[in-house]
């Protein structure tokens, strides 16, 4: 029942956080525009007065696509690599926003205040940045821990089995194991953020450790909650693919409609991330707090409380 209480509470909190979601979405959109505008200008110039590009309006055309890439690939490939760097930059922004999001979600009335949001973004930024680095290192370690044995098993199996289906199953099992750890670490990361925020600690590693203990102690609840919320973005994406297929970007109007749908989906992804965090804060509060004696010593007096009133162990209202 605690899972469903947390699920519902997170949803209610996220519903109250539409402004915050919109702010983060707007920044995401602006980021994308920074690349999309020169991208548009580039392909527009490359396409020039050719009519062939328009053959792609009805759908994918391999010959047009490959001929276009062959003649313009050199101009387009920088955008692809830039997009990956934008991803890294966006990750840093996500780290930056984390303090603000947690502050608003922990506020009693959940009312969005830009001042409060950005203040806490900056207050927690470096702590969360350290936490993010540790978590990414952990993700890499877990990926390697799964990948190398998996590669060894596949190599050994391919020399022994007659049926390649066995190899496919081994790889699938490997992917499932990896996904389990990947999600586990995402959950650990979320609770580490909550713990770090709640105790206003600077000890990122300690918060990860405490989070691991918490998640393992309540593995079923934390994991199931995460998976339950994860259903929502999957459903939204399926709806999007259905609409994309049904409507198709084949005219000015349908391009506009689908562009709106795409942006709603991006907004929804942002909003769901808040939902995740809200539910996890709620669930964290529904269980006895982890013993944090060492962490408590690190409490920073200047950020421990504010006018909204911050509890050490917030409970859902």
């Amino acid at each position, binding site marked *: 029942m605690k899972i469903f209480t947390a699920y519902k509470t997170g949803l209610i909190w996220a519903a109250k956080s539409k402004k915050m979601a919109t702010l983060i979405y707007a920044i*995401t*959109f602006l*980021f994308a*525009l920074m*690349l*999309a505008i020169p991208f*548009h200008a580039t392909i*527009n110039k490359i*396409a020039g*007065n*050719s*009519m*062939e*590009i*328009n*053959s*792609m*309006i009805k*759908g*994918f*055309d*391999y*010959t047009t696509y*490959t*001929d276009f890439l*062959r*003649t313009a690939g050199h101009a387009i490939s920088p*955008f692809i690599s830039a*997009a*990956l760097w*934008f*991803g890294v930059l*966006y*990750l840093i*922004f*996500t780290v930056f926003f984390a303090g603000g999001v947690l502050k608003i979600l922990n506020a009693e009335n959940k009312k969005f205040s830009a001042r409060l949001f950005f203040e806490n973004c900056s207050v927690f930024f470096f702590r969360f940045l350290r*936490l*993010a680095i540790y*978590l*990414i290192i952990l*993700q890499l370690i877990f990926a390697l821990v799964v990948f190398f044995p998996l590669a060894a098993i596949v190599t050994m199996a*391919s020399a022994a089995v*007659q*049926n*390649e*289906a066995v*190899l*496919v199953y081994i790889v699938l099992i490997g992917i499932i194991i990896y996904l389990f750890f990947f999600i586990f670490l995402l959950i650990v*990361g979320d609770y580490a*953020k909550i713990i770090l925020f709640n105790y206003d600690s600077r000890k990122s590693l300690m918060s990860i450790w405490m989070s691991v203990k918490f998640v393992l102690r309540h593995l079923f609840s934390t994991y199931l909650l995460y998976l339950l919320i994860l259903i929502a973005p999957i459903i939204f994406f399926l709806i999007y693919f259905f609409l994309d*297929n049904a409507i198709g*970007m084949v005219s*000015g109007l349908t*391009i506009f409609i*689908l562009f709106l749908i*795409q942006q709603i*989906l*991006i907004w929804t*992804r942002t909003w769901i*991330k808040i939902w995740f965090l809200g539910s996890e804060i709620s669930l964290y509060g529904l269980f006895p707090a982890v013993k944090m004696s060492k962490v408590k010593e690190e409490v920073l007096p200047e950020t421990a409380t504010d006018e909204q009133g911050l509890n050490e162990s917030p409970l859902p209202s």
Partner: protein
Amino acid sequence: MMSSKTKISAYLFFISIFFSSFNLLIAQQAIFQKPLSDRIANYDMYVKFNPLEKLVTGEETLYWKNTSNDKISNLEFHLYLNAFKNTNSTFIKESGGRLRGDRFDMNSKLNLGWIDIISMKVKDGEGLTTKIKYIHPDDNNADDETVISVPLSKPVLPGKEITLNIKFESKLPKVFARSGFSRNFFMVAQWFPKIGVYEHAGERYAVKGQWNCHQYHANSEFYADFGVYNVHITVPKNYVVGAVGVLQNELQNNDGTKTLFYHAEDVIDFAWTASPLFKVVNAKWRHVKIRVLLQPQHLPQADRHINSVEDALEYFDKYIGKYPYPNLTIVDPPFHAFGAAGMEYPTLFTAGCLWGMPDGIKLTENVVIHEFGHNYFMGLLATNEFEEAWMDEGFNTYYETRIMDHYYGKKKSFFDIGGFHFGDFEEQRETYAGMRDPKISPDFQNSWDFKHNDYGSITYSKTATWMMTLQGLVGQKVMDEIMQTYFERWKFKHPCGKDFIAVVNEVVKKDLGNKFGENMNWFFNEVLYGTDVCDYKLAYIAVSKIQQVSGVYDSAGVKHFYKDKRSNDDKQLYRSKVVVERLGDVVMPEEILIHFKNGKEILEHWDGKDRVHDFIYDNSDRVVWAKVDPYTKIPMDINLINNSYTVEPKKTSITKYAAKFIFWIENTMQTFGMLF
């Protein structure tokens, strides 16, 4: 060399099977009422297969006819398994021990392959064993042992036949290139001493009688005379066997083995396969019995093999000519022997299949159709793959694309998953047009002279692209007539490039007159012998108002001044200039479709020779857009994006992809953001 113990057992084996096979020979049924070929090289073979040692020991009786007017005083043979003997073979040097993604593991002696001739003698005549010497006609690689020359004391006279008795032992390599073993799968190909082709003066490019017997190269392996094969294969009882030809009889021996007798007529090679794991699925298409030897896990995909080969049979039958043989065997190699996949032999070929392959990926169909096609291109039209691979792989790829696109959809015949799709011909064209340097080498050259990983792209893909271009120029009906004439005239013979070009010239002249000039040689000079690329561009369209008659004009000594003579009823006239450029060096006759504002269209024809050509229209209407090659008859144009120009460009597509780009980059960023 063979050990004495092995020699004795082989001797006993031959004696034992001699009597049993005597009856089999009598029981052998002729496949064709009268020979379809001149049956120059005919073989009777008795072989025993030892799966543990990966050995095939055998005796071969070769009946070889001298159909030339020359006295032939030496014979040349292929010993192709010696390509896998050591690192000094031409094959390994050329391939670097890697072929089609597979690597040759030479770290174990068991993995190596070779063929030893134990003895060779003329029937009732001289012994030749000691006279055998290795020759290296292609590259002077003294270490290559894939071709031998055997001098004869008594020449083979014109019209006469020589019979040789050859004992041999073939050690199969670990499969990485076409033939060999992998665990308990065996693909036994290029495995016996096989005589080369004696080309008489005037045949193909021979100016005097000569042997054409090439070393085994990484890129090519086929050129042989037609003949009759009677092959008795003794294998352990639990092995399922597939082979070229028709199974005549199967004898159960008392030593845990069985002997299968295969008879093939009018074929250029003999290969076989064996594995205890094969599951057999049978089907029939008209007169052709189809036998599919599948890996157990691929049984659910049996229909993919059968349906696609039936499509290929139907298409070849309709557009080229009848498949003459009564049967066909499709071999499905296991995943650990993928080096043996996608290989062709007469009436038998290996396909390629993987468990769980989605229907949207037509890899199995593609391989089946391609390899079946080789029954025509090198199987029936027995071209020289070493010297003119374009007539073998290229023609076959052209038909592969036609069949794939015909049965599975032009834009999705190869891949169609999740909105991303492409057709087989599209993929072949892209393989050629997308080469780092499409000018890297001509199509017409020896297979071993392609030294920059360009063999596949040029031989398969460029040929398929220019064959489709030829079809675009002359039309499919004429193209089909060309190929049918070529087939009827040259089946069961050794045609060469000039023979094919002669057929093209003949049929085009007959059906289209001088539409493309005196002959089509210009076309082949461009696409086959040359390296240039084809690229036409619709450079621009310039539209301007035509100035009416204005100024001072002398008439009968009087100066007349006109200022815009146009009356109010006259329409404004426009000059539309459509400029087409030839960026590549290949010259092709081009069509240009001109579209006017009022919807009127004009199809212009241009010889395509000038570097720049203007089409000018003085008209009350303006040209809005124009397209070079509007019906994509010339797919070998390497850039189709620049083939059109519009003065009113629609940017909808650009907007669409810009919107998609925004969505994609937002999702990319959010995915990164998921990490925290």
